[in-house]
């Protein structure tokens, strides 16, 4: 029981409604713009995947212990598989930004530790100091890197840990 309307009203109305739909699609397909960072910020990113040192030292099995094992498993040294957690501390201009321990992956804790963290930092010159500890037998930290960076707006400062490149990498 729709009321009859004039063809002109209908065609103009349809054009307007389709145009509004098109405008809605156009606008929200790229507007409003999203700002990942403020204009006066850069981004500090920490990302690493690193297996810590084996948590316990290997020990020599006694002859009695060896005798109890199946012949194919009679290796002289017994080494636990569990790895050390990786402890990370990041300082910016002497202030601790981040201090966290990453547990090793896996049910038997024998996998690599992985970590990711990001934080906006103000643009300008900064002293960044990064410390890692990947061995439970070591007090404090056993890897360290520091770098003075001039952070530009939107610039990403990436912190990684690459053992082959000497440990802490800041770039």
């Amino acid at each position: 029981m729709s009321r009859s309307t004039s063809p002109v009203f209908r065609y103009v109305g349809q054009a307007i409604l389709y145009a509004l739909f098109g405008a809605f699609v156009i606008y929200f397909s790229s507007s409003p713009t999203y700002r990942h960072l403020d204009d006066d910020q850069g981004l500090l990113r920490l990302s690493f995947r690193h297996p810590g040192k084996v948590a316990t030292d290997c020990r020599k099995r006694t002859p009695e212990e060896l005798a109890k094992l199946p012949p194919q498993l009679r290796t002289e040294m017994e080494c636990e598989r569990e790895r050390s957690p990786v402890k990370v501390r990041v300082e910016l201009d002497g202030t601790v930004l981040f201090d966290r321990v990453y547990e090793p992956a896996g049910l038997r804790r024998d996998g690599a530790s992985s970590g990711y963290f990001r934080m906006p930092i103000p643009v300008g010159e900064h002293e960044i100091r990064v410390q890692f500890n990947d061995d439970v037998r070591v007090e404090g930290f056993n890897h360290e890197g520091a770098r003075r960076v001039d952070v530009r707006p939107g610039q990403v400062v990436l912190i990684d840990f690459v053992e082959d490149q000497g440990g802490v990498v800041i770039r």
Partner: protein
Amino acid sequence: MPVPDFAVPATPAGRAGLAGGGIVAVDELRAVRTRAAGAVRAIERAFDRVFGIAANPLRQLGGVAFDLFWLIAATGAFLYVFYDTRADGAYASVQGVTDGAVFGGAFVRSLHRYASDALVVVVVAHLVREWAYGRYRGFRWFSWLSGVPTPWLILAAGGTGFWLVWDSVGLFVATMVAEWFGALPGFDPALVRNFLDADAVSDRLFSLLIFLHIGVSLALLLAMWLHVKRLTRPRTNASRAVLLGTLVTLSAISLLASAPLPPPADPSQVGGALALDWFYLAPLAAVDAISPLAVWAAAGALTLLGAAAPWLSRRARARAPAARVDAEHCNGCERCFADCPFAAIEMAPHPSGRGRIAVVDADRCASCGICAGACPSSTPFRSDAHLTTGIDLPDLGVGLLRDALASALGAHAGVAPIVVFGCAHAAGAGTEDDLVPIALPCAAMLPPSFVEYALRLGARGVAVVACPGDDCEYRFGSRWVAQRLAGEREPRLRAAAQRERLRFVEAAHEDLIALQAQLARFRHDLDALDRLQPAQASAKVPQVSTESSHVTVH
């Protein structure tokens, strides 16, 4: 005046006589939904005035979504031809398409993008509309539940599409998706390191992304197929007018405003304003601005709520009994099989060994009675004291309808009345003294022979009130009853029937005044007719039983 009540409240659940949810939250949600339904209907009515019912895009959102999918697939196939899956070639290839190295490339890319955006709009509107109208529970549970994953699949397909371009937005998508998944237990939290350095991005990544982009789109198509699987003649295309309007609109905006191409991805630089596509990337902006776990929580809660919606209230769980087949009276004619809008009827070998018999899938049955209206044995002129038809509703059978009609007309005093057979979802007939309103679950439950029967019992006219065609609660009810009364569909109203004493009216629930006007006009026409041809006497009233505890008189 006495008005027979065929005991048909507006919903099947209501027919079962069960109270609603019982908890305040459910009641409040129902109130919100009722208000939303009113708003949706008002907008739809306004669009009806502009587009006409048949070309109203809001009434065919599902069909529009299917059309958009195919448009996206076609334009995507074109873009795929020119796409370079090397890490250092992906952006350049898209830039080539956009900058005119490929004839029509910018237009096709924009069409691909805007059609994808329109798909989100249409699917969300479809979801809101069906929810507002309460079309997510009871026999519709499967269609609703199978629709729940589709928004996520659309977002996943779109998200990988933005990633493929490998511009600054693509890099944002890559890092945010990695952060989002990295927050889940079992995923590597440093997943994102694969995109933090240009050297870490390999050629294989883009081959994988293409595979994902196409694979997720195919999964979406599968979900859409499942979504309409329980419908007879599902509407998987928009009408020609709506398709044309949509294509013209999308083409026009593609020509007027080409989809932007931001600068290439540079993992060492993430600042500046990002031109995000909010239809697809709003969740990733929330990952960045709020937290990955908060977005997981919101997404999980929405999905669970959506999946559980069909069973959240007692009212939703209550269902009217499904139609039943009487083997003795079913001759296997297949009319109910053809007319059931929800594919709830199948044909099987008849237990007697002769011919076939209709079999009802109770889980799919809407208890609308359209099948009973289609059954050739649903004729009130049969002499059986207790009318039994081949297929019928257990609690609202055609036999009861005959009893109710006879009882009401028998009890009616004064001038011969007009019998108004009305759909319970359409406008109510009112309480004028000369009206005998009889409510049906759907107007198509009315076997056409009841028109002649009512006239034979002494009615001066018969009005059949159905919902406007595309508003039919049971999809095809209005269309089927209109065609049956017009003699275009089985079971047909006999050619010898007094059609001048029949009025078929389409009036939505809120069209009360319009219905009254139509009935007044019908009354006037009948007056004119009676002056020429005296009203039918009820001399030939068949002997029927009017015993029924279900028939109540107000």
